[in-house]
């Protein structure tokens, strides 16, 4: 917000300012992806009592940079029988879809890509873009593994969108806002204002809400995990069954696009979960900037809190990945339709009732 105003004043044009500020999440995402890939490999190694990458740089911290250099040098292969235009568009579409979500995510009180009122709805809609890209890539590859992976991904994401939306709906009933910026602003000042603990509701209502908010939080986390195709829900790219699923035929930078999109998605989902339930960019204790009287420090602190919460949930995703085995297709569908959706629905009704009676 402040950054946008500053930029439009600096350039004297709101269009130029929008274009420039739309690049900010990318500046954050690329180092994040480099770090997260390294972290994933280290976490997986430590959890299996291995060492992990340790040759390139101290503790292997340059490993992903080396990987990217390798990927850039690789030949860009398009299979002879692939549908070339679709094949080439697909990775761009997947990355664009996951990048779109960042338009509505507030990084701090000073920066949000676009402060639209329907931010959450926009994010849910934009994540559908990713499915289109995956389906496109899988179909255009003209490869049975790719197609199977893509179809599985479509079935999975469409199913898991329902519990996600139901939980978001229950939060919206409580707060009355779909904008993530407003949601984050609501959960200000302290930990007990987090929506996980009932938000700004009166005390008795808060106490009644807490267990159902926890249920909602767990459902949202599980279904968001499924939406970004991470283990234990990684059947679209199940290595042991489908080679690499929908990106089997991709190489070089196009593969890197898929990879970047996956990590961007991981962070986006973590950021959304933390913005909905855990205060987003708000500090749980108050700000150093306020106590010192340095108002410019507050947005920076908020940004740090935001990335810390995001990174924590990314770490939990990795933690789950190296703990749980992959679900079978029928188990995956059973989990969604038999467990998550009914529970989310009942949860929605109960939260609706609690909000309605206004104790």
């Amino acid at each position, binding site marked *: 917000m402040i950054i946008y105003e500053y930029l439009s004043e600096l350039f004297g044009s709101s269009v130029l300012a929008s274009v420039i500020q739309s690049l900010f999440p990318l500046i954050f995402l690329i180092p994040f992806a480099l770090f997260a890939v390294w972290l994933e490999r280290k976490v997986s190694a*430590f*959890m*299996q*009592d*291995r060492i992990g990458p340790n040759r390139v740089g101290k503790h292997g911290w340059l490993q992903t940079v080396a990987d990217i250099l390798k990927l850039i040098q690789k030949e860009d292969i398009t299979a002879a029988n692939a549908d070339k235009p679709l094949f080439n568009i697909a990775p761009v579409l997947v990355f664009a879809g996951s990048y779109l979500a960042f338009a509505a995510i507030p990084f701090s009180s000073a920066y949000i890509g676009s402060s639209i009122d329907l931010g959450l709805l926009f994010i849910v809609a934009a994540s559908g873009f990713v499915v289109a890209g995956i389906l496109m890539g899988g179909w255009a590859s003209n490869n049975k593994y790719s197609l199977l992976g893509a179809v599985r991904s479509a079935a999975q994401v469409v199913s898991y969108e329902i519990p996600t939306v139901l939980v978001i709906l229950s939060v919206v009933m409580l707060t009355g806002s779909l904008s993530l910026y407003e949601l984050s602003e609501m959960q200000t000042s302290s930990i007990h204002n987090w929506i996980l603990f009932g938000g700004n509701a009166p005390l008795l209502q808060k106490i009644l809400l807490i267990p159902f908010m926890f249920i909602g939080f767990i459902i949202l986390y599980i279904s968001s995990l499924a939406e970004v195709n991470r283990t234990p829900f990684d059947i679209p790219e199940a290595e042991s069954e489908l080679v690499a699923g929908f990106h089997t035929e991709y190489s070089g930078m196009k593969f890197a696009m898929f990879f970047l999109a996956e990590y961007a998605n991981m962070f986006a989902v973590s950021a959304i979960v933390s913005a909905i339930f855990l205060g987003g960019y708000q500090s749980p204790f108050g700000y150093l900037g306020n106590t010192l009287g340095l108002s410019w420090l507050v947005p920076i602190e908020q940004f740090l809190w935001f990335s810390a919460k995001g990174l924590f949930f990314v770490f939990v995703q990795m933690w789950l990945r*190296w703990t*749980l085995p992959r679900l079978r297709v029928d188990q995956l569908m059973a989990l969604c339709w038999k467990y998550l959706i009914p529970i989310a629905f009942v949860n929605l009704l109960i939260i609706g009732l609690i909000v309605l009676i206004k104790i």
Partner: protein
Amino acid sequence: MREYFSNIWSGLFTVLVGMKITFKHLFEPSVTIQYPDEKPKLPERARNRLYVNMDDCIGCDQCSRACPVSCIEIETVKALPTDDLGKTSQGKKKALWVTKFNIDFAKCCYCQLCVFPCPTECIYMTETYEFSEYQRDSLNYSFVTLTPSEIEEKKDNFAKFEAEKAAQKAAAAAAPKPAQKTDE
């Protein structure tokens, strides 16, 4: 209905149990041995590449005969009575020049059968196991300490010595031996 809720409970609970286990392992030291930098400690009686200490070898050929795959080739030349070959570390006198002592590790099966018959304990297993080569011939190790010219010299010396001996014998045979002649 009860089964439904117990399913949910056990599902969530077992996930947490698993997460607890993986979290514990996050802080456990790794079991990796970074091989070329650090090597695993070999067992005491590990059998790897052979080594022959030629100072102690008396050229008795016992190892070669014990070898089940015939990978040890030994050739010796007798020393002249005037040569001093020294003694082994166990005080045995050496009587043969070892002119060839080849072990072909491409054939060797690391059975250690050559080690036991050696009377001077000069052939033994070492801890070296990294000796891969691009050519199979390079695996044929020669342990001889004599230079080729020395080997030639020893052979020549022995041939000359033999020839001399033969000449002496012939001379002795040709010459009449009156003193020993007795009537038959």
